[in-house]
């Protein structure tokens, strides 16, 4: 059964351990700007919102890649960047309407969430269970899915 990251912003305290864990797991540095998950802060509302790729079915990034560097991991369902193939053209960063593919100037490649091969470091690091890794059909994902559907404008089936 495939699983997904489930994010419950209501439980997030803004500790940013997910960012540190992600950055260390994937880039071997403790640097939030290298994290593929980002906690957004809304001071006025006193809210924190962790945000990352939902591994959307549309896979805008994958379809936009000119060199086949983004492929689906059949085990996790994640759309993964293959660094040995990526040329760093950045087209996926503008094609993803969720803003979850970023360019890393240090490596000359793009980066996005790959679910850490089925053991996401952010979920393990989250002390309040604001980020969990659960059955993909979990209803908590509905909100993100709804937004994804609204943005999914490539085609309309008649």
């Amino acid at each position: 059964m495939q699983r997904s990251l489930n994010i419950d912003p209501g439980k997030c305290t803004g500790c940013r351990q997910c960012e540190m864990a992600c950055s260390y797991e994937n880039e071997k540095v403790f640097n939030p700007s290298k994290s593929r998950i980002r906690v957004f802060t809304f001071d006025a509302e006193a809210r924190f919102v962790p945000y990352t790729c939902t591994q959307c079915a549309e896979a805008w990034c994958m379809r936009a890649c000119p060199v086949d560097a983004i492929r689906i991991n059949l085990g996790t369902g994640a759309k993964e960047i293959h660094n040995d193939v990526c040329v760093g053209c950045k087209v996926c960063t503008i094609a993803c309407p969720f803003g979850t593919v970023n360019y890393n100037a240090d490596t000359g490649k793009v980066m996005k969430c790959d679910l850490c091969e089925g053991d996401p470091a952010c979920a393990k690091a989250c002390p309040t269970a604001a980020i969990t890794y659960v059955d993909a059909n979990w209803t908590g994902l509905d909100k993100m899915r709804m937004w994804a559907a609204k943005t999914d404008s490539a085609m309309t089936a008649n």
Partner: protein
Amino acid sequence: MHYVVLGAGPAGVVAAETLRTADRAGTITLVGGEPEPPYSRMAIPYFLTGKIPAEGTHLRKAPGYYDTLGIGFRQGTAEGLDTDAKRIAFADGSHLHYDRLLIATGARPVRPPIAGLERKAVHHCWTLEDARNIVTLAEPGSHVVLMGAGFIGCIVLEALAMRGVNLTVVEMGDRMVPRMMNPTAGTMIRKWCETKGVRVLTSTRIKSLQSVAAEKSRGIFGFLRRKEAPRDSDTIDVELDTGEMLAAHLVVVCAGVKPNTDFLEGSGIRTDGGILVDRYMRTSANDVYAAGDVARGYDFSTKGHDVHAIQPTASEHGRIAALNMAGHNVQYNGSLQMNVLDTLGLISSSFGLWDGVEGGEAVEVVDHDAYRYLCLQFKDDVLVGGTAIGMTQHIGCLRGLIQAGTRLGPWKERLRRDPMRIMDAYVAHSQMA
């Protein structure tokens, strides 16, 4: 059912793959115009810099990929189309019958009417073959003149500069990338390129290309027209409308492209700066579809039809055309103009109606010293376009907000005060609503 896909760029390859998924039994023939496996032009600059070998540009990497999918791949240049007999005529005299045809023949570079452009050491940068020619001539330190600083010119610029050549760019327009960047952004990119050692001449035209050997006959006046002395390896003299002479070892021409529609003459298929298609990617002829850079597809931001010569649009066109060819009934919701460019480490992008709309409102923040810029274009409280320089994080949210037509409400005022909060606005609307 025999599906023929003319053109083996991204639109054609995605279409052939989609046809295979949608119709397991159909016969699929993919026709490429060049003696190469299907590849991506977008990857050519990375071949030029040596980041990837020629194989790195190939759209699909697995050996025998097309065979495995039961997609027949052949080479051929279409010369004519008979839509009544459903027959394509190729330049080598052969013919091919189709039941349903996709035209994904892309575009080719324009050769401006300038004397001397037929000389050796003058190349477009469009095909892998062009790139191989450029690689042999663009040696470190050699004089290279690049004609055109549009989007393609700028991508080539980066690759040439990284090869360590002595580079001069000549652009007719008043700024770099005039069709993708507004004056503020285009000027910022120019300044950046100049600090990186590239000579940029805007509002300047190339008058002619001559043999550099003629130099001796020009005497002292010829010498006065130069800022830099020719090297022994230089074979071409580039004459500018300012009177200046530039000696060059290589001239690269990036003066725009035009759709490959010549073979459609007499076919009855309607064209107007590209093949006209409806929202099902159908052309004016029965069972003939078009996709990618050759097609004027639906643009949801303008509600009109236009050529959006970018990889994501080509891939969407190809997929939707193929689904309709296979008997599904899916309407294309449209693309929007967008692009991303890396000029020697300065990354810029623009989206949608980046030049604004009548009755709209623009907010911008510019930091010339840090080479950072963000301009947001609104219609009421909806984002309709944007331009960014020096921003590489979450930039796709601009597309998301434009595409979803998100009403920003109170965030519009917040963005007026600080445009850089655009991703906050996006997250607030997508995750907290």
